[in-house]
């Protein structure tokens, strides 16, 4: 029932995303264009421009929400979020390097982002493993935040040294689905498929880890193996999302949090909600970005931060986090 409601919400968002934009295509024209009628311009705007960015927002939303849910279950920490943990920053740094060495932002291959995300992910996990930080939510978050700061200031230095890079990356680093080449989606498809398969196969063992390692071992799972595989899935998902839309923080925090509030704390249940609510949030943020400052647009990353950070504050304020 709740799933159905979320699905309806998502459908409404998708429709709205096709109908609302910064251009001067009236609502009625856009509606007609959806039915493949109406003026040529309206059809172009709706099917070429809005459709592709809606699709991208959809994919990115799914990726980040699922990655957040996986990471939080893995670390048993509601604050563990790819954006806050430096995974996205790793991705961004790798892309900054790639652009510095001559790649263009528009036709960028997805590999730097993927590799950067994997390295960022491994760094965070390695750090949390070395001192068993996983059990210490605050330290884990701070470690991630510091890692992010380090990577972002390194990226900033690259930007300083080369104006061209700065120009290419300035918007990208804030996160956006506007004007991105829709082909990027095809390039990240393999990653998404692999990650999807991993999640499908390993969701039960992961849920058992969520109950405690002894439970997992008792059920015949190997926690270390599961951890490794899930980390790879997270890296694939975040890398894909970052390659498409740039580093977006807080999506992976807000969505799983809401999903848990709706569907309970078992990942096998709330992951479905994440799948629907992630795109909802991103598509919604993207719509707002389009209409707020015509004829220009805001980068969607600014919006997700402005939506997400208050949720973090709320979490802290209501003392939902243990040991705080």
């Amino acid at each position, binding site marked *: 029932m709740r799933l159905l409601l979320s699905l309806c919400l998502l459908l409404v968002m998708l429709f709205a995303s096709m109908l609302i*934009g*910064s*251009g*001067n*295509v009236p609502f009625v024209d856009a509606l007609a264009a959806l039915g493949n009628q109406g003026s040529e311009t309206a059809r*172009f*705007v709706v099917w*070429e*421009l*809005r459709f592709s960015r809606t699709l991208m927002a959809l994919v990115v939303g799914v990726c980040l929400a699922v990655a957040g849910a996986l990471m939080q279950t893995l670390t048993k920490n509601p604050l563990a979020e790819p954006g806050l943990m430096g995974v996205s920053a790793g991705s961004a740094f790798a892309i900054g390097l790639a652009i510095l060495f001559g790649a*263009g*932002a*528009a*036709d960028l291959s997805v590999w730097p982002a993927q590799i950067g995300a994997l390295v960022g992910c491994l760094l965070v996990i390695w750090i949390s493993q070395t001192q068993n930080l996983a059990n210490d939510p605050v330290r884990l978050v701070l470690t991630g935040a510091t890692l992010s700061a380090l990577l972002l200031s390194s990226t900033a230095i690259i930007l300083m040294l080369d*104006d*061209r890079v700065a*120009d*290419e*990356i*300035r*918007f*990208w680093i804030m996160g*956006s689905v*506007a*004007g991105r*080449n829709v082909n990027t989606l095809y390039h990240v498809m393999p990653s998404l498929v692999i990650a999807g398969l991993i999640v499908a196969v390993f969701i039960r063992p992961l849920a058992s880890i969520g109950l405690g390692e002894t439970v997992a071992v008792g059920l015949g799972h190997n926690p270390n193996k599961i951890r490794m595989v899930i980390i790879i899935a997270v890296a694939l998902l975040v890398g894909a999302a970052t390659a498409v839309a740039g580093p977006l923080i807080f999506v992976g925090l807000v969505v799983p949090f809401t999903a848990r509030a709706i569907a309970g704390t078992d990942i096998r249940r709330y992951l479905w909600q994440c799948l629907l609510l992630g795109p909802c949030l991103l598509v919604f943020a993207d719509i707002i970005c*389009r209409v707020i*400052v*015509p*004829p*220009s*647009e805001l*980068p969607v990353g600014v919006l997700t931060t402005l939506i997400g950070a208050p949720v973090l504050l709320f979490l802290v304020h209501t003392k939902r986090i243990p040991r705080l």
Partner: protein
Amino acid sequence: MKFSLYLSRVIGFIFHTVLLAVSLGFVSPLWAENRLVQTQYGQIDVPEGIKRVVTLHEGALDAAVALGIEPLGAIATRGGKGVATYLADSVPEITIVGTAREINIEAILALRPDLILASPTMQKRQYNLLSKLAPTIVPAVKLLSKDAWKNNSRVYAQALGKSVELEKILINLDQRITSTKNQLGQEGLTATLVRWTPQGPLLMSPDINSAQILAQVGFQLKGKEAIKAGRPHSDPLSQENLNLINAQWLFLSSVNQDGNKALQTAKLSPAFTRLEAVKNNRVIVVDGQLWTSSSGPLSAKAILDDLQQQVLSTQKPN
């Protein structure tokens, strides 16, 4: 020898009397050869025999080079590591003393300048320091006003004691503009000047130097309504609003020199290929350093060269 000195003094006296009479009617910077330069921060007395000039504005470097002076130092052009390419050959030994963002005062000092030509946007705080090093000229010209580059160049030329030479250059340029206009032969061709960035095109203001020249040779520049007052360009436009840059001619640049790459990037966007100028093959790729950040007589000349080479050659086959 003595006589000629005497003669020159007499002529000088007459000249000054005339000047005084004229300046009662209006004050013209052209004739004020006494090297008292009116700047944003007051009147500056520039001594004779200037040899070591440092320019902290791309337009100042351009004007100085145009007047036959080789400055010792300059700031890097936006998006580059050295001075703009169209000037690089004229000043092979120039020292870079920072960027528009951060000026390295020590590097300027190391050059021991006797005149500093600064940007009209220089802050008072920096001016205070620099003016202790050498007379520092900060023109009181608003950057996006009409003929801003000419008026700026006039101030710099005055400081360099070369006002007469500059006026000659400007007259030549005006003639060149008229002849280009005649060669183009058509009034009211619409055009837009755009800098392509990955986040979307920036529509350049019709008030920037290159756009003013475009207007003078007969192009009608569109899209001013998308630009906030006092800004050199619009915010990055949404893909849905590319019709704002739709015109018969499209001048396309990027922040760096490689305009062709900008064109390739732009062509990846489906909205771009729908533009009239793109369909009719009327996209002129231009050097961003030259078209969107430089100013001055040499820059104007180079822009006119670009127009002549590219626009006229594109026009012929049709």
